[in-house]
């Protein structure tokens, strides 16, 4: 097809793509090579200075990065296990199947920030209902102020909020599976448990990989939960990469430095997610 005006028709899409994707990335790279902060706003070129500072003189960034890895991997594993269990449950013919299918999706329909505020109230150490109930057993965990427990509080809220998404993907996967292998497996002498291990799970492998990757990408952006629940505290014990970048960039207004962190973070994420996807494919699909 040779058509003179084809670029004209491509333009609207291209314009949007350039405007919202390509330009920001290029701008971040340029910004990361500048010393833009509240005293010296502007794109004055300072070379790789920001990157040298990041790699030699900022343990807080790397700590927040490893914390983020821990939080996202843990939450995604939990979401996968719980999501799969719930999806498997309503996939079978059980009573009130439709009711449960909708019920399990409710958390996803709520606004994360507002739900986190509610969770914060729940976990309030002296006024929250959680500790009120736990007082029966004589314990009162410091949900939001203990450096270790606070991490798990974040995990609980994240898992509650996003398991429904995993549930939805996995249920769709289960419903699209062919029925025949299950008939064959029953006749071949597989008990329900073995049927799950040897038929359901392997057939679900491709969908599982997709769902896990999508959730990992989402989970590694975790920000609102931390912001509302603990503000990264106590100290920096729940601070994640995106939250740290937010503090540096938009609170302390070290735009140039924050940009260099963002770009480094982007590169690390692309590499690590590619590796994770490859490994998952190898392990689950045996390819």
């Amino acid at each position, binding site marked *: 097809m040779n058509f003179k005006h084809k670029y004209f028709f491509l333009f609207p899409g291209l314009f949007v793509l350039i405007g919202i994707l390509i330009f920001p990335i290029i701008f971040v790279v340029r910004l990361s090579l500048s010393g833009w902060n509240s005293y010296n706003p502007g794109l004055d070129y300072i070379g790789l200075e920001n990157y040298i500072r990041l790699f030699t003189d900022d343990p807080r960034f790397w700590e927040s990065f490893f914390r983020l890895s821990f939080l996202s991997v843990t939450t995604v594993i939990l979401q996968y296990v719980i999501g799969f269990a719930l999806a498997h449950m309503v996939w079978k013919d059980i009573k009130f199947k439709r009711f449960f299918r909708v019920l399990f999706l409710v958390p996803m329909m709520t606004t994360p920030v507002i739900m986190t505020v509610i969770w914060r109230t729940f976990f309030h150490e002296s006024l929250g209902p959680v500790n009120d109930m736990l007082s029966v057993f004589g314990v009162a965990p410091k949900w939001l102020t203990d450096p270790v427990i606070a991490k798990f509080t974040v995990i609980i809220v994240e898992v509650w909020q996003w398991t429904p998404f995993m549930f939805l993907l996995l249920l769709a996967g289960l419903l699209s599976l*062919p029925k*025949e*292998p299950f*008939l*064959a*497996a*029953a*006749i*071949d*002498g*597989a*008990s329900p448990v*073995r049927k799950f291990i*040897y*038929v359901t799970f*392997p*057939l679900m*492998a491709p969908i599982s990989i997709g769902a896990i990757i999508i959730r990992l990408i989402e989970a590694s952006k975790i920000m609102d939960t931390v912001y509302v629940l603990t503000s990264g505290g106590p100290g920096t014990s729940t601070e994640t990469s995106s939250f740290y970048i937010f503090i540096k960039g938009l609170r302390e207004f070290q735009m140039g430095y924050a940009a260099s962190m963002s770009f480094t973070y982007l590169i690390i994420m692309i590499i690590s997610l590619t590796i994770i996807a490859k490994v998952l494919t190898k392990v689950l699909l045996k390819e």
Partner: protein
Amino acid sequence: MDLVANNLSYKPGDQYHLNEVSFNFKEGNLYTILGRTLSGKTTLLKTIAGLLTPDNGEIEFDGKNFLKIPVWERNVAMVYQQFINYPHLNVFENIAFPLKQRKINQSIINEKVMDALKSVGLLGYENRRIQELSGGQQQRVSLARSLVKNAKILLLDEPLVNLDYKLREQLREEFKNLFSKGLADKSILIYSTTDPRETMELNGEVIVLDEGKVLQVGTAKEIFENPNSLKVAEISNDPPMNIIEAKISDNHIRFEGIDLEAPQHLSKLTEDGLKIGLRSSDIELNENGHEFEVELAEISGSETLLHLKRGDTKIIVSIEEVLNFKIHDKVKINFKVDRAYAFNANGKLASSPFGGLNG
């Protein structure tokens, strides 16, 4: 070890899939369930396998209530008409699957799988993926999977129906060999089919099923020689038996202006509303015969099927050679009346050339 069923009924909607089906299957025999599509064959096999629970009736195997035993403990094997295998496993793993469910030593599994592969002629295909196989090969894999576990009951649900002509012939031959090789000695083989020819060739005990009801039980020979009703005659012949409305009187059969001398076994019949049944292969082309008009001529394999018409009477004639006819051609045919059946007004067999009933 007998498989006994009493009054099995299954009626999911307003139509019976099984209607008071009873049988007594004995170890070491081959049973063929013959019926048209939707006659309840698959339902019956699924009920035996345990994939369906009947509304009424009971099944006993080896003296135990079979319906109380869950599917995976029944020691049943099944081959489906749509080649069912595990898409995520290769050929070897597919066949090994039933054995793996029983904690059998790996070296024994290897040996058994190789034996099964050999018996279905798929040696060398162990590591292929299922999707890389042709339909016939996929069906062989599922057959091997059902053979490998030495099940007490082997169910084959129209295993050849989705294969092309050549493969069907070839696999049918292989089935016969497998069944006669002593496979059937220790188990009960149940084979369902819509194809009368397959039924005759397998030569086992035949159960004719229609609309969930058992119409006739007997050996293939018995069903062929003395179909007990019009319906059985229709189901157990391909093309279906020709049914001609005729009058029998004074030793003569008369229809459409044709006058045939009645053979001995039909001559004594006098009742009204008789129908004459004659197989398509018992009618031949003959220069001195009766004139019919060709409505359709189809060539199937090495034979020609002629759909003929005279007045209101329509018949099908099969000729063992490939001939070309045009529509509206006139042909002359002869009836081998000594091979004709008679059915009375309510469809029951009245007389057969093989000595059934009044003959």
